[in-house]
């Protein structure tokens, strides 16, 4: 069983501060949906409104089509996994997992059996009688997931649950979470500030800034076609050029910058304002200038990072630009101080407006 979640014009105010501003999103049953944004962008507030710990100031939240207004967290078909997991330290693992069943009056033998089943599901058999303090970070993580799954929620809410783990474990748990979600078919809402996590795990991502949802799309779309400068620069790296839009035609425009005239895709820009965003991996370094979009640069700093090579170069006007070259043997590593040209494909650069914020 899983349910869809609909947020309609949801706002949340804390005093005079508007934490969430007019959020509209429709999450499908069984979807893995992530809210991605920097801290303080309102993503946790959305999660707490869905779970019922905060009532929205305005707007409607529906779970499975039912309006959740006035429903306490213990009445909602959701299960929240806390950032610090919030396991019950004084109970053994199996009681932790079966706490939700205990509350529902399930008898002890059934609870125990269910706990063992769930421990198997999260790949942690034999831990039933251990105490929380005896488990490692990753194991605690699994117990928290099992505890949430025990109540058979229609929606799982995860509040940056991987942020306390080390890198290797985090990557492992990403795959694990994704697998558990697919196995159980429960709708997952995942909160994170880590773009890698959001892109790797989610069916769709909602990028947030300053209480507003900036873009909702699948991970590829978010990365390849960000709608505005905030999404572009929060998800991935960019070379950013300020300038002025000139001669727009059929989705392309030429853009006047201090570095010269460039051509690029034109986003939802009103008037002439906007910035040009070029991903470092979409740039090329060559000894001779191409037909268009070429900037003369001096190679400043070359760092070899294994699978790719990052080159920081300085343009004639003094701006630092970054280029990322794949280490596939074809790219020659530029020499320090070399005079070269950085160029990019017009179709892979975009002129975008700034973030969608309150005016």
């Amino acid at each position, binding site marked *: 069983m899983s349910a869809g979640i609909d947020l309609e014009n949801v706002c949340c105010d804390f005093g005079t501060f508007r934490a969430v501003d007019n959020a509209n999103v429709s999450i499908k049953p069984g979807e893995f949906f992530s809210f991605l944004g920097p801290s303080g962008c309102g993503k946790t507030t959305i999660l707490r409104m869905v779970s019922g710990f905060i009532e929205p100031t305005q707007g409607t939240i529906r779970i499975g089509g039912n309006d959740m207004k006035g429903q306490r967290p213990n*009445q909602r078909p959701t299960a929240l996994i806390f950032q610090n997991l919030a396991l019950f330290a004084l*109970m053994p693992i199996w009681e932790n997992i079966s706490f939700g069943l205990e509350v529902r009056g399930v008898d002890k033998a059934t609870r125990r059996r269910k706990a063992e089943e769930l421990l198997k599901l999260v790949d942690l058999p034999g831990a039933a009688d251990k105490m929380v303090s005896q488990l490692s970070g990753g194991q605690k993580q699994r117990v928290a997931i099992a505890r949430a799954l025990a109540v058979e929620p229609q929606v799982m809410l995860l509040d940056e649950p991987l942020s306390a783990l080390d890198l290797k474990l985090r990557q492992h748990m990403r795959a694990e979470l994704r697998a558990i979600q697919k196995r159980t078919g429960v709708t997952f809402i995942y909160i994170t500030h880590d773009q890698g996590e959001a892109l790797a795990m989610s069916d769709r991502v909602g990028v947030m800034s300053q209480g507003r949802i900036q873009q909702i799309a699948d991970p590829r779309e978010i990365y390849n076609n960000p709608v505005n400068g905030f999404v572009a620069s929060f998800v991935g790296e960019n070379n950013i050029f300020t300038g002025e839009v000139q001669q727009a035609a059929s989705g392309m425009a030429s853009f006047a910058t201090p570095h010269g005239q460039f051509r690029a895709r034109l986003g939802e820009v009103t008037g002439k304002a906007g910035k040009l965003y070029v991903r470092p991996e979409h740039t090329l370094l060559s000894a001779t200038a191409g037909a268009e979009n070429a900037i003369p640069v001096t190679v400043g700093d070359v760092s070899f990072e294994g699978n790719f090579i990052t080159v920081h170069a300085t343009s004639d006007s003094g701006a630092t630009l970054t280029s990322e070259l794949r280490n596939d043997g074809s790219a020659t590593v530029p020499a320090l101080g070399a005079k070269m040209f950085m160029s990019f494909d017009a179709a892979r650069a975009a002129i975008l407006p700034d973030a969608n914020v309150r005016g």
Partner: protein
Amino acid sequence: MQELLRRYGSGLTLIMCLLVAFWLLMLVIVPNITLFEQSFRPYLPVSEIGGPRDVYSANNYLKVFEGQVTSSLFGIEFEIPVRVRTFLLTIWYSMVVAVLCLMLAYPLAYYMAKIVNPKSLPTLILLLFIPLWVSEVLRAFAWWIILAFKGPLNALLLAVGLIEDPIRWTNMGFTGVVIGLIYTYVLFMLFPIYNAIQSLDTNQIEAAEDLGAPWWKIHWRIVIPHAKPGIASGCVMVFMLSAGSLLVPSILGSTTSQWFTQTINETFNDALDWNTASAYAFLLLILCTLFVSVAMWLFRVKLSDIAK
């Protein structure tokens, strides 16, 4: 110790150690040992002290079993030594005080630790502390006035219409004593519990609610187990202080409420029988300690939990 030496030098360290040693030895150990020794000797005229009748025995301790009175419990009448009766009633009502303090303090502690806006917490704590600035005697007398036959409490209850005739609060057995002791010692219950609950991660409470637990289940399974050391240390403290209180039973007691400390005090100061009085004092100390130990064992509380 080395830290102390490094910081303050040998002179100051020596003075500090000597002062602590003096305090421990002369103000705690020696008086107690003296009384302990006295409690085994008979109460004799000065001329006979050190004479042939001045020998060690447990007679002073056995004196608690002298003097039978008739008492009744659940309608059954039985004979009981008067001081044993006083002792048992002291223990019983100290327990009542501890339990009532717990019932008062737990909700307030939870409110202070988890619900109240942190900004108003200092004001709240100040309000709780202000009564402590007044001396214990004055506070007991204040209650004596409040509980008086024609006092404000009766006036209020009469005005509201809850009672038809004024109640003799301080003449109803232990009622006045229990009220006075609760007022005097409730903060000793409040703060250990407050500290314990405060250290509980609020997310655990929310997690329990999220998993569907009603409020009482959250308290029973999450908050109370976590606060158990605080509850235990509060209960031990209030129980021991109540059982050892002399002032409140003396002021707020009735003709029918004898506290064991009053018995000890009368033997010391009225009968001037220091020997028997010390025996009673040690009996109170030993039996209360025993009682607390048994209670702690029953509730599976370790001494190290309380010391936290």
